[in-house]
């Protein structure tokens, strides 16, 4: 399967990363090389093999549904680019 420039632009949009048209060619060449390596996977038959999503076959822990943290919004918002009245500021989304 060969990647195209359209693929690069589509993935870049999904990933929310601006790729300048002059960069797109270079990105395409590098991704094509990496996918050539990745394609080696297809040589092995994996029918009937259970996918392994994690190193340890354990269930995620559950905990009581209760408040465990304390309110630290002032501390965490102190490092935000723009904050007003405890809200993160961005440009208007809805007119």
């Amino acid at each position, binding site marked *: 399967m060969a990647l195209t420039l359209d693929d690069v632009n589509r993935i870049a949009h999904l990933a929310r990363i601006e790729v300048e048209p002059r960069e797109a060619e270079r*990105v395409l060449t590098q991704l094509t090389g990496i996918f050539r390596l990745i394609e080696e996977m297809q040589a092995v038959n994996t029918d009937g093999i259970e*996918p392994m999503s994690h190193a*340890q076959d354990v269930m*995620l822990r559950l905990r009581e549904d209760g408040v465990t943290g304390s309110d630290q919004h002032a501390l965490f918002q102190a490092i935000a680019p723009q904050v007003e009245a405890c809200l993160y500021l961005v*440009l208007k989304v809805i007119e």
Partner: protein
Amino acid sequence: MLNFTVKQLAADLAARRVSSVEVTQYFIKRINALGKTLNAFISVDEVQSLASARAADQLIAAGKGGPLTGIPLAHKDIFCAKGWLATCGSKMLSNFVAPYDAHVIERFNQAGAVIAGKTNMDEFAMGSSNETSFYGPVKNPWDTAAVPGGSSGGSAAAVAARLAPAATGTDTGGSIRQPAAFTGVCGLKPTYGVVSRYGMIAFASSLDQGGPFAKTAEDLALMLNVMAGFDARDSTSLQREPEDYTRDLAQPLQGLRIGLPTEFFAAGLASDVARAVEAAIAEFRRLGCETVEVRLPNMRLSVPVYYVLAPAEASSNLARFDGVRYGYRAPEYSDLLDLYCKTRAQGFGAEVKRRILIGTYVLSHGYYDAYYIKAQKLRRLIAQDFVEAFKRCDLIMGPTTPTTAFNLGEKAGDPVQMYLSDIYTIAVNLAGLPGMSIPAGFGATSHPVGLQLIGNYFGEAKMLNAAHRYQQVTDWHMRMPEGICSEG
């Protein structure tokens, strides 16, 4: 003090022959003197460090010191430490002062250790040479034209150049073991789930694991005693009885079965690395170990599998960097979508962007089964190879890397060649096993060679035992890069 182990420094501190303030000042002076030459550190804060050192001296004076009290440690800049920058080697976090401590940092603080500084690293831990850092490459203390390895290159170089007696790192595909090998120090990646990932900036969550760097196996054990432990804030942290990783260090190795995977000694392994590794294995035979040949037939697929799974997880983890809540925000943008796209285009470096794009693609509609699920199935085959191999042996050994440290710029333009330098380490992360690298001599260009030890699940104490006994009869681990070490 230059070549003292953590254990020796702790003994001197406990006996009040030296104070933590003196030890900390000594190492910070070296960090500052060699700062430009090696570029191993991103942040140094003498005021904060000395305040912790004074507190440690009081603990020791009150008879409340432990094995790491007053010891200055270098931490990879991926760990959040309250009040310190945590940049993860990225422009994206170049203004990020951590508002809380990682679990690992909390544990070291409770043990009375001192933060000597935060070390340089590949951006978001994505790299094998430390060349992807926004803060510029780290140089190898043995040869400043060579890379120190990555991604924990700054931590490895700091221990190698004796800028700190020990350090922390993280290992997703070899990022502790490969730089340890390239710089001639010891590094250990624990079994997945042993060290909490809370406050450790995420790259690929099913593979990331924190671990220590030091000069000796014994020091690694002392470090791991502090780092390991259950933490409810990491959903994959394992609930186990605490272990003393020093308990088996002195056990004799008589009858220990070492598995030598055929695939580790096949084509692609440089002859100078092979010679040093074979000499080290001969030493283990003299110590009473038996060697058996084992097979890891699916290991060759570990690099392709890793470059599907790790980018997939990274593309999800790094979605949080959007210029809204913390970190970098692009100065100019037209709307909210443009804010995201420009912030991420400007805040991330080329390698990070490449991996996010790969990850986004393999998770996208129509490709998920062909790439992501396929890779997860192969991950199981790779892990099963180790299960079979450990039926025949107690530890696996082989080279950590196919070559010794390569030169700066040599592979920077070719991502695939760079990825293949982790061929012997990646399978261990995919399986979730513990692994370590210890110095085992030098190659043709006088660059250090690393011997890799791979343990079965929770086999850290056994690996440390074997490494410690080897270090009782060899002195590779105490060799220093003389040129750099005479400076500072």
